[in-house]
């Protein structure tokens, strides 16, 4: 493939491009789902294509194609060059990329069992078995269980001399059921919402999740929620678990700290950010116990790879250190805007047909010092919320509202009644500054976000957010219309 790719590099060099790269990507995705005793999806997708990025006269052009011929590589590279020339007509100053050494390397996601080698029959058997358990109660009107496996083989070549080959693998699975009765509808899922748990692992992930073993509990909770009391209104201490805390990190820290967004490059679509560059190193984002670390080397992380799509080697860095804004998600184009001579390496593209953009890396809340049990014992009047159901945040990442699938009241140190339709609202820095306890490493685990949308044209990326249950004081809960 590098021989094929070299054609684009030759053309970029010949036309004296400031920078050029080509990514050839062969991807395979297997999607399976079962709904109401029938196959809901069973699709095996294989794609192959390439994307060429040209920086010419300080401006970008990008073009891509799935016609794998030498002639097409030439056409697409020249077209990217022409697009860059059109871009150059409207620029203030020339784009300059932060320096990165050239690499010649191969990297792949470690795994134990290749999910594509596991028989489809075995996978469907598990999904049908889960489906059967989920539908045992007549109040369950809809149940969907699913698995999703992606392998992406990348060949990345730059005019700077990098030749990087990577094979990235992810596996995911989960299920959701919807209970409906007497004008009420409730949802419960496992292990998390939005397609279940996804990590950069092989089929061993599926086997570790005990999917069938949790189906009965999940069904029972969905039905019990129908008659559970509603989430109380007011300000209470809020303990957030797993998948919901992952989304909280994602929306109110991850996106807020993408440097392209901070600099206004997403203004027209998803918005900008309150976490502006003059705040770097100084702004109190959260309480002193809040440490949020970006890590492209994290085992199992969906953004874990040897290199990002700027050909920058994987790194680990603080976004928030002891409560203070300490870093951003960067690419090579914008790193210089915060006086950094090297990108942290968080630039990725969705497949061969999209230009690499700044993305959230794996971003995790570091564990605290208390046990999960003590966290609850120490809470007098609070609410636990788990598994995201709805999400919304303003375009500067300040005002947010989240809804969860399930909640429980905490009274005098004990987890008590289940509550339905739990919601909470907040303003990002105020919220993270109210964090006064984070459970220790015994409760810390990774949660995958497999469907993060950003950019125009919209691109999807995957990343993880590790966390342990954490407590936030006096949060506004129980928002009603």
């Amino acid at each position, binding site marked *: 493939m590098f021989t094929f790719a070299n054609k684009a590099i030759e053309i970029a060099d010949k036309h004296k491009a400031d920078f050029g790269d080509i990514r050839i990507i062969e991807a395979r995705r297997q999607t399976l789902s079962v709904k109401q005793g029938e196959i809901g999806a069973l699709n095996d997708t294989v794609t192959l294509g390439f994307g060429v990025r040209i920086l010419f006269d300080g401006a970008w052009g990008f073009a891509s194609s799935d016609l794998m011929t030498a002639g097409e590589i030439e056409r697409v590279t020249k077209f990217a060059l022409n697009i860059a020339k*059109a871009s150059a007509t409207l620029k203030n100053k020339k784009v300059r990329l932060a320096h990165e050494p050239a690499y010649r390397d191969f990297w792949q996601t470690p795994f134990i069992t290749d999910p594509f080698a596991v028989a489809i029959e075995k996978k469907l058997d598990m999904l049908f078995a889960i489906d059967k358990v989920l539908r045992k109660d007549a109040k369950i009107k809809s149940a969907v269980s699913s698995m999703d496996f992606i392998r992406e083989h990348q060949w990345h070549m730059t005019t700077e001399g990098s030749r990087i080959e990577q094979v990235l693998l992810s596996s995911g699975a989960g299920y959701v059921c919807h209970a409906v009765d007497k004008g009420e509808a409730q949802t419960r899922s496992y292990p998390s919402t939005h397609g279940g748990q996804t990590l950069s692992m092989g089929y061993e992930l599926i086997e570790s999740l005990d999917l069938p073993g949790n189906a009965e509990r999940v069904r029972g909770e969905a039905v019990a929620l129908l008659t559970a009391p509603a989430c109380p209104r007011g300000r209470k201490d809020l303990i957030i678990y797993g998948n919901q805390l992952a989304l909280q990190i994602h929306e109110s820290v991850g996106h807020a700290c993408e440097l392209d967004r901070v600099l206004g490059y997403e203004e027209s679509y998803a918005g900008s950010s309150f976490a502006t560059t003059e705040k770097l190193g100084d702004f109190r984002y959260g309480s002193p116990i809040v440490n949020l670390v970006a890590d492209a080397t994290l085992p199992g992380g969906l953004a874990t790879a040897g290199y990002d799509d700027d050909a920058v080697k994987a790194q680990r860095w603080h976004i928030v250190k002891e409560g203070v804004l300490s870093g951003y998600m960067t690419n090579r184009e914008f790193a210089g805007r915060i006086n950094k001579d090297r990108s942290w390496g968080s630039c990725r593209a969705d497949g061969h047909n999209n230009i690499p953009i700044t993305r959230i890396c794996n971003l995790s809340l570091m564990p605290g010092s208390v046990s999960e049990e003590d966290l609850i014992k120490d809470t007098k009047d609070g609410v636990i919320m788990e598994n995201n159901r709805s999400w919304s945040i303003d375009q500067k990442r300040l005002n947010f509202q989240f809804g969860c699938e399930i909640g429980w009241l905490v009274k005098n140190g004990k987890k008590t009644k289940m509550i339905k339709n739990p919601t909470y609202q907040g303003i990002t820095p105020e919220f993270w500054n109210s964090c006064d306890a984070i459970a220790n490493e015994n409760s810390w685990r990774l949660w995958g976000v497999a469907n993060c949308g950003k950019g125009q044209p919209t691109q999807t990326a995957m990343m993880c957010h590790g966390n342990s249950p954490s407590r936030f004081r006096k949060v506004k809960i129980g928002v009603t219309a």
Partner: protein
Amino acid sequence: MHDHRTICERILRLAGRCPAEVIITSTDSALTRFAGNVISQNVSNTATEISVRLTDKGRVTRFTLNQPSETALKMGFSRALETLRTQKKNPRLMPLSKPVPVKKTKKLFFPGTAELPPAERAARAGILIKKCKKAGATAYGTYENGAAAITVANTYGVRAFHKESYAIYSVTVRDGNGSGWAESPASDAREIDFDRVDRTAMEKALLSRNPRSVKPGRYTVILEPAAAADLVLFMGIYGFAAQFYQEGQSFVTGKLGEKVVSEKITIEDNALDGLSAGMPFDYEGMPRRKVTLIETGVARALVHDRKTAALAGRTTTGHALPVPNTYGPIPANLALLKGGSSMEEMIKSTKKGILVTNFHYTNLLKPLTVKMTGMTRDGTFMIENGRVAYPIKNLRFTESAVEAFNRVEAVGDKPQAYISWGRVSAPALKIRNFNFSSSTEF
């Protein structure tokens, strides 16, 4: 673009006796993005997706690829046939569809729009940027164009083909701490009134500078078409998709024929004509029919695919997604029909209220009431005594769209189209007692 017909016939031949369906989608797309008064991104993509569904006596599988080579196709068939062989039979599985004539939609393909060169997109961005620089403002946005072609064919003779072009000009302008937005999509780029889009976004940005804080609570709102379209989209999808209805998760479950919202509201799904027109058949090759979902406030009908239609004892309305799927049919060409009020009349008749340009990051909280949340964005204004009085800081709404549509006081006379999950069009709406649950800092 690949020749769809040749690929389809080749695949159906390779399928032999195994009933097969082929969906081929080809797209040529390009987008110029600008931010901070410069071009920030300029991209182009050519892509083809070939998706093959095989069925065999109660068994089903699908494979998808983008390389129509002999090797790739043989690999796809080999894996798919193995999957079919090991699968348990499903007696409820529907056979592939038989051909039904598809009505033509209005003309939606314009070669000039499909092939707009990057220089022309850059020039258009340049005109706005020049205006903004002169006004001391900053331009952000996109100008995108392209074409998409789709073919659905199967063993039983279904052959459906559709081609359309598109151009979308979307602009955000920042002026100090003010922000304005406007957008115009079209199948023919010549129909876009670029100057109007520029002017609207720049005026809103200027007028929304130095916004004041207002207390959250219930207000009369005037939702401009983009904000109204957002609510229509959620009402359509979560109310009138037959699978949600059959699962008891729709607010109209058991209420067809009953008044569910204000009599001022009529919502259709219409792929064949009007502002939301699009592909005239679904992903099984079945013709999309015009479906009146709500007629003067009364819930009338649902959109169906073959599976939900069979359960309901009806015929499909042509709203299938690629089968099998877990979502069921989806209305993809929604239109809230216009009323008789101009924007000026709506504002003039409002003693105290809020004018909303657009919503941001809307999401569903409860399906049975279509309770939603989201933020206002890019121009939110207080109306007092019949005039736009001053800009206000953005607010979060938490509101049931069904209840809100029961409190509609006026429907605008100028619907606008947007491309979102499919196409949706709506005029402005005036709604009383709309609930804002909190505010933000800008």
